């Protein structure tokens, strides 16, 4: 527990003493702002639905760039050797890093609170829906961060880890629009695998245990794969 917390703190320190966190916050909030404006201008409704859907897609590209350094860089600079020769389990290292990237996501999402405030000033948003939407988005971040960490554990090259993470996560999105290839009947089945339909129930204000299970399973699955990769790297 102490070790997980130590690693979480160390990662956050690294984020915020380097330009990294600020660049991510800036890029993300700019994109979110564009989607917020477009969502309202196009639909004319005082909701975050359009913005959140688009934001989740952009997170798919942004978060692997955030997590790519987590293991790749440590392998390269040799700090990984220090972590693995201290009395700390790989699970603690992994969870610490995942929580750190998730914390930065939380900060990024808090930044979009500005848009909620604008919405509340001019309109009358459904606060329940706002809350469930953010919950859904945070769960999505959890999946993306875990997938990005897995990609990072596979290589000591940061760029490869970042691109690999994106490629790894893209099927979660693409599988949701494959009807032209597989037909409507199969599409209905594939929709269970796709990420956006699960996120959509949250943005409608519905909390379904099936959706929560979907996000939890993916997150846990990626983290487990990362753990196995870290273990196996030592045998090679």
């Amino acid at each position: 527990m102490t070790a997980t917390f130590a690693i979480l703190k160390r990662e956050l320190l690294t984020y915020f003493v380097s330009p990294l966190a600020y660049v991510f916050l800036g890029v993300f909030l700019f994109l979110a702002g564009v989607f917020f404006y477009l969502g309202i201008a196009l639909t004319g409704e005082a909701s975050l639905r359009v913005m959140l859907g688009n934001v989740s897609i952009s997170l798919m590209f942004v978060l692997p760039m955030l997590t790519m350094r987590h293991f790749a860089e440590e392998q390269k600079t040799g700090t990984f050797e220090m972590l693995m020769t201290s009395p700390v389990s790989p699970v603690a290292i992994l969870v610490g890093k995942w929580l750190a990237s998730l914390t930065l996501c939380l900060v990024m999402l808090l930044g979009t609170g500005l848009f909620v405030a604008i919405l509340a000033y001019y309109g009358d948003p459904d606060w329940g829906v706002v809350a469930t939407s953010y919950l859904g988005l945070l769960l999505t971040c959890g999946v993306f961060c875990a997938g990005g960490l897995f990609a990072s554990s596979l290589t000591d090259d940061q760029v490869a880890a970042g691109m690999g993470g994106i490629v790894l996560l893209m099927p979660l999105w693409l599988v949701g629009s494959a009807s032209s290839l597989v037909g409507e009947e199969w599409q209905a089945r594939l929709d269970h695998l796709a990420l956006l339909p699960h996120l959509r129930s949250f943005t409608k204000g519905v909390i379904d245990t099936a959706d929560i299970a979907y996000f939890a399973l993916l997150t846990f699955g990626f983290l487990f794969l990362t753990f196995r990769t870290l273990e196996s790297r030592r045998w090679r």
Partner: protein
Amino acid sequence: MIEVEHLTKRYGAFTAIEDVSFSVPKGHVLGFIGPNGAGKTTTMRVLTGFLPATEGRAVVAGFDVFEDPVEVKRRVGYLPETPPLYRELTVGEYLRFCAELRELPRADRLRRVGEVMERVGLRGWERRVLGTLSKGYRQRVGLAQALLHNPPVLILDEPTSGLDPAQNVGVRELIAGLAGDHTIILSTHILPEVEALCAQVVLINKGKIAAAGTMEAVRAQAAPAYFRVSLDAPGVEPAAVARAVGALAEVKVVQPEGEGLRVEAEPGVDPRPAIASMAVGRGWGVRGLERTIPTLEEAFLSIVGREGA
């Protein structure tokens, strides 16, 4: 304190180390030498629990590296070849992080960080960013990290590589000061350093132990002691002097060396009295009769060969 038995590590078809066995008693400093790529770093990584061995057994500080890796890691301080630093952190931030990883109680952390910084000569450097430090100071931070939890066993992989001569002496003195309380494995290419610090030596070459034992034994095993003989024989050809010395039963090989002779004998045989009495019998003067022990460097080269040099 450290027992290594028949350790073998293979990467696929490549054998990094094979059947490596040695032991280090408590409080001793073991010099671990060998050419680049001989398997030093691999051996150290196995001992620190970073790499599992393919075969064999290693016990460090009373715990089996493969059965109780966490207990071993608690008792080992490790300085890898490149100091494992987070470039963007300051010295203080980094060492406090290491103190947490090393499970130091909260109350002791700051005090311990201060102590090790003092010990490795980093006083006043707490706020410096690691990425801006010179190689010598990075090495010091790496050492500080290895000492934080006051481990009974220290494994140091080339702690003096890239240091200037003054820093070298500093690190050497530091290690000498740590011996006794700590059991140390020291890998280095600087052989005079090993001669100054280590009572025991393991020389590893191509993954196998080529020589091991006390410093004296390793030197003698590699290249037997020889003798420098200088005789004053007026009017006698140098070749005739060499023949006369070579005719003695105690002498095995005679070669001219400089103005005198280089004489080798069977191990344990001292040909000096025989040479002296022979010289006196012929009315020659004796300028010098001196026994020379090969340096570790000579021993290293005679075992490893000069192909890599």
